[in-house]
């Protein structure tokens, strides 16, 4: 089984994101970069499948040279190959990402392509669907359980209020969700092995974006805390405020 896992380098979840003056972009300096956490579930699932069925896992990431550190972190989990699609900065338009990925991955003989359900920075959740569409493959996303049998697969998806079981035919694009598995630690042997794996760098003419982020802003400051100190006798007042002031019920 030949599997590609598309991963995105994103800021660490604990990084304090700074917006540059004018609000047009995010300041890169001082950011700790990590593999977008949903992508770790994708890598783990791909590794488990190839360990059970044979085959290889190729890590694919789009970005400047900086993302090679993240690619190595993915390789250290046990993947065999890696491709970096060179570009000056990671695209903001998921349409661009999907088109470029489709161009690079088409014709390489992959049976499955994994992605995370979404990247934790852009939160667009578009790449798995758009990529599958461009390849004319099946797409199942927000997957929490997966079984492959020959050229058929069964996936459990998380949906509002429950889960949904789907059958699909391969090849397919799978968007991994939390709970799909427990990503492994990178052990010392894996880290040392990853060091020696060559990363194939691919140049692509990226298509023009069809959307543009015009500004970033911080979330509204949290309001003053209100303390209720009279126990049960405050309940009516709390309910009133939640309804009228906070407008959450």
């Amino acid at each position, binding site marked *: 089984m030949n599997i590609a896992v598309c991963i995105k380098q994103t800021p660490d979840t604990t990084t304090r994101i700074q917006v540059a003056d004018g609000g047009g972009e995010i300041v890169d300096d001082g950011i700790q970069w990590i593999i977008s956490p949903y992508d770790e579930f994708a890598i783990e699932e791909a590794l488990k499948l190839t360990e059970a069925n044979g085959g290889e896992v190729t890590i694919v990431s789009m970005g400047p040279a900086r993302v090679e*550190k993240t690619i*190595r*972190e993915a390789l*250290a989990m046990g993947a065999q190959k890696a491709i970096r699609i060179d570009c000056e900065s990671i695209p903001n338009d998921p349409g661009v990402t999907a088109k470029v990925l489709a161009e690079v991955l088409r014709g390489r003989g992959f049976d499955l392509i994994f992605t995370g359900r979404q990247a934790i920075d852009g939160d667009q959740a578009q790449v798995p669907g758009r990529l599958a569409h461009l390849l004319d493959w099946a797409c199942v996303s927000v997957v929490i359980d997966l079984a492959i049998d020959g050229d058929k697969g069964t996936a459990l998806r998380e949906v509002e209020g429950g889960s949904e079981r789907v059958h699909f035919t391969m090849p397919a694009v799978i968007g991994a969700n939390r709970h799909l598995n427990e990503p492994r*630690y*990178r*052990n*010392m*042997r894996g*880290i*040392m*092995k*990853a*060091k020696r794996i060559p990363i194939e760098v691919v140049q692509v003419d990226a298509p023009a974006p069809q959307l543009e982020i015009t500004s970033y802003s911080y979330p509204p400051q949290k309001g003053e805390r209100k303390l209720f100190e009279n126990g049960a006798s405050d309940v009516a007042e709390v309910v009133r405020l939640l309804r009228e002031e906070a407008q959450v019920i």
Partner: protein
Amino acid sequence: MNFALTEDQEMLRDEIVHFARQELNKDIIERDRNQQFPRDLWLKCGEMGLQGLPVPEEYGGAGLDALSTAIAIEALGYGCEDGGLSFSICAHLLACVIPIMNHGTEEQKRKYLPKLCSGELIAVNAMSEPGTGSDAFNMKTRAIKEEGGYRVNGTKIWSTNGPVADIALLYAVTDPGKGISGSTSAFIVEKETPGFSPGQKFEKMGLRTSPIGEMVFEDMLVPESALLGGEGAGFVLFNQSMEWERVCIGAKHCGTMRRLMEKSVSYSKERESFGQPISKYEAVSNKIADMKMRLEGARLLTYQGATRLDKARDVAIDASMTKIFVSEALVQTALDTVQIYGGNGFTTDYEVERTLRDSIGGKIYSGTNEIQKKILGNWLGL
């Protein structure tokens, strides 16, 4: 001179810290109280590759150089709050696995290293005896050559991992006439060997999750193939293993000091007296400033020593200096951490008194600090 870590050194450090915090830090107070060695966690550490850091990949290790090994052990000391477990790993790796890696025959390496690296086998270094600690080469244990191998009689004491070990690296006198540098040989002894029995287990003030005990050898016959590094190689082998211990357990202490310093910083910023955080009082902040200085000095000595473990023929002086400086830095830092925590620090629940208890042994094992000073004095021609 370049003081920056490489990307893979950063990766292994971060991953070990992450692993240790997620997997190794539960229920330590209970384990410490009951003197319980966590075999399950030992095996998890084996999966991570911690028991085989510098061992070549073909024998099941990760093939790290000595500096990267020290950086990895430092990360373990930082992330893992079970000082006994990390100490047991160090004793196994530095005083048993590394000598086999460096001096084993191809057959010995193939037979033992993969299982020692994975954690399937636990090893103990059996050197000290009831009557000989600092002057260890005056040992009483004898291995007398006879048909079929060596006949061993003797008792070892203070053997870390002894009560749980599967194999022992045993030192015994094979030729008393040869003088200190050639009288002693090292043997790899399997626990099933008739005549070997684990003796008493000792209770101790710190490192309580690391089991320690006696080992008794009575008319035990070991085959010649058990000899490590040839007859008379015990002196060189043991001294090299102590150099690795003195430097790399120093690395573990550096990690522990960093953890204590960070705890002291956050506790002192939260705890208030006379209406302000205690960190605002110089009597407190000076203690933490000293912790920072000691840590940075200790780390430089450790990294320097580690670099030389790979490259220099003789690192005895570096190892002795590192051993003294770092173990004393750790005890002082642990003592000051308890002081900064005040009454809370004296209680078990805050988990800093345990680290103080754990730290004291550092001045004794791998050769006492007094003996290290003696080595330095001799080297200076005094």
